Each structure stands twice: as structure tokens, then as C-alpha cells.
């Protein structure tokens, strides 16, 4: 944190910090701001009006105020999109790093782990004897975590957990299922709460950082400092978590602003399909999607687009400055 506020930084850096602070402030204080219009009120007398008083940034094709939509979108950004980006990057880094470090043959688990997985599957498929299976699964996973962080490996029958295939397979499955099918399947249920939407975005967005970190991990794994760590006898878990993973996550720095843009794009396609969101939940993505209904109303796309661009540039600026500390 101290590194963020070090003196003698370029002006652009301070501009970036102030923009991010403005967005965070708008997001957190949004509902209590004295705006004349709410983001979901459709002013039927002012359909697609250009920026003028009293709608200072204009209205969209339904008559909703763009300024109010900007503030509501900032709130959504701070509460859903940004956490989703970081969570997806973190989850992707962990899974991709594991896939790249251990591959398909290196992560050896005791045979009891297979029993634990079988028990978990038994429980999930609701075959008879569910409670017993659940207890078995819990016990095995506890034993497993104890074994993984040990310093001296024990000699016992082991099986290999194919982490690489699992992670790549899960990523491929998520990528290969057409978005529409997935969203239609999800739309069959009740509408999403905030946490469910956050979870959905994380689940959709984790494969990309995972593949990047996996590729970088393949490179980092053969570096001299990792070989030195092996030679010094550190347990594999520690080598992976403390040494290999931070090095492999370097490439994520430039990815995070891009994946934020990607998540906003996903939100705009969700808003376009109307799934998981009602028109009274306005976000920058849904404003961008609404621009399609009235292409001559350039302000509906320009305002959130500009805000998004400034946010991305600010994030990039902060990321490079944090690297150059």
C-alpha cells in the first residue's frame, strides 16, 4: 500500500489514482447522491434526447437518464465487475499454475484420495448411502491436505492426479459450450442475486488467465531458481505457492485491465439477451448494449465507453507503476 503513494511519480499516475478514487466513490456513495432522475426511470417525453438540461448527458432509446446510468454502472463496477475480474484472475492463476507446474503425472496423491473422490461422486449422484459418502470425502480431503504440505515424502502407493487435463478440460468445456446454451440453461432458473452473478462471471472468465499462467509456468518451471528451490529440499507446495506462482503471474498484470473490458463486454451481451438482469439494473455494459437500439444517439455509447476507457487506462497506469516501484 505504501508503494502506491510514493512521491516522485508522473502526473499521469496521479490522474489515474484520482479517477479510480472517483469511480470508487461514486460506486459506494451512489444511492445517496442527489440526482434528479433515477437510473431506471423511463422519461417517455424525452426519448433519445441529446445532452442538454435537465438530462445533462442525454437519454437513451427508452428515455433513461445517461448520467444516472453512469453512476449506477459505477456502483455495479465496484460491487461486481472489478471483484469478478480479480477473483477470476486469482482463480485462473491458481488453477493454471497448478496445471503448468504439476502437469498430468507429477501430483501424486495417496490412494485414499481416489476413495475420497469416488465418495464425493457417490454423494453428488444421490446414490444410496449419501451421508457415509460425504463423511468419507471430508476425511480424505483432510488427510490429503496434511500430506501435501509435508517436507519429507512418504513411501506409499500413490496415484497421479491429472491436473493438467482436468484444468484444460474444464476450460475447454466452458469455452466450447455456446454462450447462448449456457445462458438459456441458466435463465431457466430464478433471476440472479449479486453473488450468483459474481459467481457466474468468475466461472465464465477464469479459463483465459488460467491458460496464460499455465503457459508462463511451463517456462518458469525450468528456470534455475526453481531448480535451486528443488535442490534445497523445500516441499513442492511451498515451491509452487511462494516461488513459481508469483513469477508465472507476471503476465497477468497487463491482462487484468483487458479482462475487465472482457467482463464488461460479457455483461453487455448478458444485458443484450436480458438474462439475469432486468432493465432497472443499469450498468455500463447494458448502456453500451442499449446503444444498438438507437445508433444515431452517439452519447449513449460514448459516455460509458469513455468512462470505461479512462478506467482501463487508469488500471494500466497503476499496474505499470506498481511494477516499477
Amino acid at each position, binding site marked *: 500500500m505504501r508503494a502506491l503513494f510514493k512521491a516522485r511519480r508522473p502526473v499521469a499516475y496521479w490522474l489515474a489514482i484520482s479517477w479510480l478514487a472517483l469511480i470508487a466513490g461514486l460506486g459506494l456513495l451512489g444511492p445517496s447522491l442527489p440526482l434528479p432522475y433515477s437510473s431506471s426511470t423511463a422519461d417517455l417525453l424525452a426519448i433519445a434526447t441529446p445532452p442538454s438540461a435537465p438530462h445533462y448527458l442525454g437519454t437513451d432509446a427508452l428515455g433513461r437518464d445517461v448520467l444516472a446510468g453512469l453512476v449506477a454502472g459505477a456502483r455495479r463496477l465496484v460491487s461486481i465487475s472489478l471483484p469478478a475480474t480479480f477473483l477470476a484472475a486469482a482463480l485462473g492463476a491458481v488453477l493454471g499454475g497448478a496445471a503448468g507446474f504439476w502437469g498430468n503425472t507429477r501430483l501424486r496423491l495417496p490412494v485414499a484420495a481416489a476413495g475420497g473422490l469416488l465418495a464425493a461422486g457417490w454423494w453428488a449422484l444421490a446414490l444410496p448411502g449419501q451421508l457415509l459418502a460425504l463423511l468419507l470425502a471430508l476425511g480424505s480431503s483432510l488427510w490429503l491436505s496434511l500430506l501435501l504440505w509435508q517436507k519429507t515424502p512418504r513411501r506409499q502407493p500413490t496415484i497421479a492426479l491429472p491436473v493438467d487435463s482436468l484444468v484444460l478440460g474444464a476450460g475447454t468445456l466452458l469455452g466450447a459450450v455456446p454462450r447462448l446454451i449456457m445462458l438459456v440453461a441458466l435463465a431457466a432458473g430464478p433471476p440472479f442475486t449479486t453473488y450468483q452473478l459474481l459467481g457466474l462471471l468468475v466461472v465464465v472468465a477464469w479459463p483465459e488467465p488460467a491458460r496464460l499462467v499455465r503457459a508462463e509456468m511451463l517456462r518458469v518451471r525450468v528456470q534455475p531458481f526453481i531448480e535451486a528451490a528443488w535442490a534445497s529440499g523445500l516441499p513442492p507446495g511451498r515451491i509452487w505457492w511462494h516461488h513459481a506462482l508469483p513469477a508465472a503471474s507476471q503476465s497477468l498484470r497487463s491482462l487484468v485491465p483487458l479482462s475487465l473490458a472482457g467482463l464488461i463486454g460479457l455483461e453487455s*451481451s448478458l444485458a443484450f439477451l436480458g438474462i439475469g438482469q432486468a432493465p432497472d439494473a443499469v450498468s455500463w455494459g447494458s448502456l453500451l448494449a442499449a446503444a444498438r437500439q438507437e445508433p444515431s444517439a452517439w452519447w449513449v455509447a460514448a459516455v460509458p*465507453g469513455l468512462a470505461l*476507457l479512462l478506467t482501463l487506462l487508469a488500471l494500466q497506469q497503476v499496474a505499470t507503476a506498481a511494477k516499477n516501484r
Partner: protein
Amino acid sequence: MRLRRFRGKRPIAWLPVRTSRGRWLLVRLARAALAAWGIASLVFVVSRLLPGGPEQFALDGAGEKWGGASAGHVAQMQQAARQSFRHRLGLDEPIFYVTRSPAPAGWHWHGRHNQYHRWVVQLLHGGLGQSYRDGQPVGAALGRALAYTLPLTGSAAVLATGLALYLALYLAGAPGGRGRALVRTLLGGLQTMPLFLLALLLLLLLANPDGLNLVPAGQVPNAATSSLSQVLSYWGPRSLLPLLSLVLAVLPSLALPLAAALHHELGTDYATTARAKGLPISRILRRHALPNALIPLLTTLTELLPSLVAGTVVVEVVFALPGSGRLLAQAAATHDYPVVVAGVLLTALVRLLGLLLADVLYFTLDPRLRPLA
């Protein structure tokens, strides 16, 4: 003395391929095919479990008109019509070999008379089924649509990669400068714009009769009767705008991470040594830093492969191209299961082959990156 068990790759003796690399490739291809089939099977089962089926769209209009006979009679006939529609398409059979019913709780075995078995048998004979909407073979429809999509997306990918390399080398050439800051800002702006906005913007700016009109007026050439030169002269200028929108949409995600990776490479010891030896920075970038920094770019490129086949719905809708993205999106929206499953099979296969290609390319670039078993 305890013999260490050989944990490396044992070459499979009976395969016709000689080298271990070749055998590894063959094994990976087989695994990719199996994984694609597994994913398509999953989508097959899930799509048939979704509420609402193709009969909703086919019999939608019939329900609103009726001949004025007694209401109960017509409701009964509508029910019979739905059942006969499902029977004709084979949707009244059980979905899988085993199904679980809520009450009485348990699993039931159905033997070979289920939809999944029929689909697998058909797939093994090389058929992809027939579309529910028009009864035409899926393979032919997909092939026709791909003939429109693949040239466009393939050339867009090639152009975007070349342009991304050029821009990244330019951006990493010097730390500052107003030109570079401007390029970065423009790339960031392109990244924030959704694809449909970009396509609409290009359409309204460059194909507008009120303003700049790069698209000459002309009628669609009939595929059967017009010559090759007519077809090319029609499609040539018309493919400019979709190509441009695709290139601009994918350019930032290729160029910016590559520029960052190149910048990172310039800070390493070997690059400093090269500078100290007096090499110009452009040469260091091209010959020494670029091969090391290409790994993330390759990852992104191979990840783009599935969207080459099925991901360009927006461009196809805006520019009125009957491509495969539009075909698959329409099929998903109208519950046309055979087309959706064929599309998923194709996309999954392409993605897995892309992963394989990426691993092979990693090994080519850096022999230390041995492919994992």
C-alpha cells in the same frame, strides 16, 4: 536393490509411427477427439433437459388460430399435435442409457432405444443428423456456412497477428513518446468498444450514402449463374468492412500483452548484455526478445481459434453474411438440437486442436518446454 519403475513415456510399440514425438502427437489427437465427443455428449444431454423444446417454435402460430370447434376438442388436438411432432423427431424416447426419476427414486436402464445411442451410431457412420427446422442435413448446412465464415476470419486472424507484431515492436521500442502513448490509448479505446458497436460504427461511417460510401451499389450475384470475377468483384469491397471490424476488435488483446512481455524481456540480463555489445534495440527486439515473449501471444492466438469458427455472430448479423456464427446462434435460440450439438462438436474439436498446436509451438520456440504427458 529396488528397481525404479520407469515413469517416462513408453512408446506404444504397435503404432505405425516411429518417433516418440510422433506417437505423442497421435495419442494427443486421439485424446482430443475423445474429449470433443465427451463435451458434445454433455451438451446433447443437457440441451434435451432444457424446458421448452423445438415444438414451441414450430407449433407457435398454430395454437392461436383454431377452427372454432369446441374448445376442449382443440386443446386435445394441440396436445396430440405436440406429441406427434416430438415423435416424428424422435424426442419422445429416453435421452440416455440410464435416467434417474424422482419418484420412485432410482435409476432405470433403457438399453439401446434411446436418443443418445442413435446419435452416437449416426456419428460413427459420419452423419450429423438433420435440422429440426427444415429437415436438411446438418453437415451440408454447416459446410455452406463455414465457406462464408472461414475465409473472413482466417484472413482477419493473419492480418491481426501481423499488425499486432508490428505495433508491439513499435510500442516496446522506446519507453515514452507521445506517438506511443497515443497508440496505447487508441488500442485501449478499441478494447473497450463492444464488437457490435465497432461494426455498426464502421457501417455507418464507411457505407453510408450520406457520407463516405466505400461499398459500390450492386446486386447479390446468384451463386449458380454468375462468373468468378463477378462474385469476386461483389464480395471484394463488401468483405472490407467485416474484415476491418474483426481485425480492430481482436488487435488490442494481441498487441498490448505482447508489448508488455517485450518490455519485460528488455529488462533481462541477456538484453542488457546485447545492448552493451552495441546491438540496435530493434534487432534485440526482433531476434532475441520476441521469441521469448511470444508465449502469451501464442496462447491468445490458439484461444482465438474456436471463435474463428463460431464466434462472429455480431459481424455476420450486421453485415448480412450467412455464416456459421449466425447459424449456431439461431439454432441455439430455436432449440434446434442437431445443429447445436454439431456446432459444439466442431468448436470443441477446434479448441482442443488449438491446445495441441499451442503445446507443439511452445516446444518449437523453447525446447525446454517439454510437452507434458
